[in-house]
């Protein structure tokens, strides 16, 4: 699915800070990544690594104390950060749509589903109420809501969690956007329902040739849904590659540690690998590589910011020691702890 032309979304050196009472939170610290036309891309990381802030920065829907300091968000070649509020309103929903984690809080509990859906449709498409209702019903059918024609007049509380998430997907896709940002779309759902919703997202993504930015902490979901992955840590992208490479040949120590810490379904019992320490606070982040205080390979040089190196085509790693890891890994297993920083 690699596109030779310009990417659909190209984020370059994005810095977003939050100004709080206890200090400046450097939520995004030079984030760069891209998403091609019709490409499903995963954004992976633990809580507080800047995944959601990235989505909010792209759509410029940051909380009041958050500010984009510098950088570029190029969508189809246009820098969205130079757009004014009126222009952004046209982008939101029509070109870039978003669905959120909690399907209950993103729907208005006192409005019928129809009223919540047709507003957006008639505004952007310039059609009247009846036509908009038609479109909405068709979308609801596409996401698998049974008896959509009558259920469109129901209120959100009359639907289950999985159904609500489907409604949100229907609403987000009603305008045929080119990019869908899904922020932890299945985290609040049960596994069987999660499988249903992911299936719908995958099908529609292919059907509409949609660019998908899937934000999640669930590596299984990423492996099954996306073609390419950007791994986030401490407000930066630490590794980008196609999904297979990330899972089979990860080069950043953090990606490796993350993959090792999931209990595997096949592997026999034993102790799980853990990452010592905690996710850094971004008010006073560690200097240099933000992972170095927790990294077993860290040396003195890691206190400076690592360059982003393209080790293979399309495989970017931000680590000083990416080339020596293989060797060290073997040594580490042999001698337990060859060095300590």
């Amino acid at each position, binding site marked *: 699915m690699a596109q030779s032309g310009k990417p659909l979304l190209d984020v370059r050196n994005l810095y977003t800070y939050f100004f709080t009472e206890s200090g400046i939170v450097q939520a995004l610290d030079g984030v760069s990544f891209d998403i091609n036309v019709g490409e499903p891309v995963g954004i992976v990381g*633990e*809580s507080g690594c800047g995944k959601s802030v990235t989505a909010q920065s792209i759509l410029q829907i940051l909380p009041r104390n958050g500010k984009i300091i510098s950088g570029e968000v190029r969508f189809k070649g246009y820098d969205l950060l130079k757009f004014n509020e009126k222009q952004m309103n046209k982008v939101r929903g029509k070109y870039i749509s978003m669905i959120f984690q909690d399907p209950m809080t993103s729907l208005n509990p006192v409005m019928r589903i129809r009223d919540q859906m047709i507003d957006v449709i008639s505004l952007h498409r310039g059609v009247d109420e009846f036509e908009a209702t038609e479109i909405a019903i068709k979308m609801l059918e596409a996401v698998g809501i049974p008896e959509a024609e009558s259920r469109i007049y129901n209120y959100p509380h009359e639907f*289950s969690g*999985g*159904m609500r998430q489907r409604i949100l997907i229907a609403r987000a896709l009603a305008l045929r956007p080119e990019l869908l940002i899904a922020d932890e779309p299945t985290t609040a759902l*049960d*596994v*069987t*329902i*999660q*499988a*249903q919703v*992911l*299936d719908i997202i995958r099908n529609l993504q292919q059907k509409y040739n949609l660019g998908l930015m899937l934000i999640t*902490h*669930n*590596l*299984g*979901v*990423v*492996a*099954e849904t996306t073609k390419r992955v950007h791994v986030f840590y401490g407000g930066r992208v630490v590794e980008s590659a196609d*999904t*297979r490479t990330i*899972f*089979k040949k990860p080069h950043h120590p953090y990606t490796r*540690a*993350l*993959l090792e*810490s*999931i*209990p*595997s*379904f*096949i592997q026999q*019992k034993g*102790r*799980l*690998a*853990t*990452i010592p320490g*905690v*996710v850094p606070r971004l008010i006073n982040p560690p200097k240099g590589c933000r992972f170095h205080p927790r990294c077993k390979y860290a040396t003195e040089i890691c206190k400076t910011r690592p360059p982003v190196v393209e080790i293979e085509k399309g495989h970017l790693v931000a680590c000083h020691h990416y080339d020596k890891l293989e060797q060290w890994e073997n040594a580490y297993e042999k001698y337990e702890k060859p060095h300590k920083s």
Partner: protein
Amino acid sequence: MSGDQEYTYLDYLEEHSEEPLLRVRELKKWYPVTENTVLFSRVIGHVKAVDGVSFDIPKGKTLGLVGESGCGKSTLARTIVRLEKFQSGSLYLEDQDISSFSSRKEELAFRKRVQMVFQDPYASLNPRRLVLDIIKEPLDIHRKDLSREEKRKMVIELLRTVGLEAYHALRYPHEFSGGQRQRIGIARALILQPDLIILDEPVSALDVSVQASILNLLQDLQEQFGLAYLFIAHDLSVVKHISDMVAIMYLGKIMEIGPTEEVFNHPTHPYTVSLLSAIPIPDPDIEKARIILQGDVPSPINLPPGCRFSPRCYKAQDICFKEEPELKEVRPGVWSACHFPEEGFEVLKFIGLEKDTTKTKTKKKAKS
């Protein structure tokens, strides 16, 4: 397998229980649903949250309890620790009948032996109390014989056991991360040296790297103190990792129960099969066969007639909509409540984790 029709799971438990610590028999917990009119309220139905559940937890072992939200996992946990009353059935902790307490003393003795760790480490710790006081509180109730100094020593020792430092005792919960808070919750459950800990989704609110360290800690503590766990979770990989036995619950009933490896590698109940095929596997090379369940969990007020899983089941036949299946022994030790249990089902092959030799050959051919 057993020819005798009368041989039930209860009989099996009586025969096979080796040193059972907790015995749960035919436990039912129904919540009345009332309709309020102007003057009266009348009961129009029941939410059958726990509808006849039986199992044993042996000493020092872990029973994993799996199910989707609304299946009654948490109600079961709350009933076992006697935070809820129940309609019928019986509960025994070793030889003590814990379905009712004749005196406060008896109740205290029970509470000392069974403790609970909750899901949300943010909501389960009082934000206005020091960690020292939080962990010490059970001692204040149960161990009035100890002096202040002795209690303090015990707390500090325990903090080290769960991987925290002594100075953490004089801090407040908000100063800790989610994983550390869960450690505090575990320390609080441990301080009375209980025999059984009920863990209600203890790691589902945590990040994967932190989740791994808490799971390791739980395993270490089990070894060190010989604890028995009832481990409730919806994440099947986690349950598989930590449990010796596993029970799959659906709408208040146990659908399948047996040794973890057996149940997860060769499931017999179609619901277990569907659950296992729904887990996203972190390996992009796997092209999974899936059984995607249609529809949602039905409302526990209006249970479908017959098997409660029948409306979503891929194997359902006429009898499934009429007659409710009881637990039957499908293989030695594996009990399944299904009219048409799967036999010889291989999960790893089905979801593609174990490569069929034939498959890889064809793939290689295709490549060359």
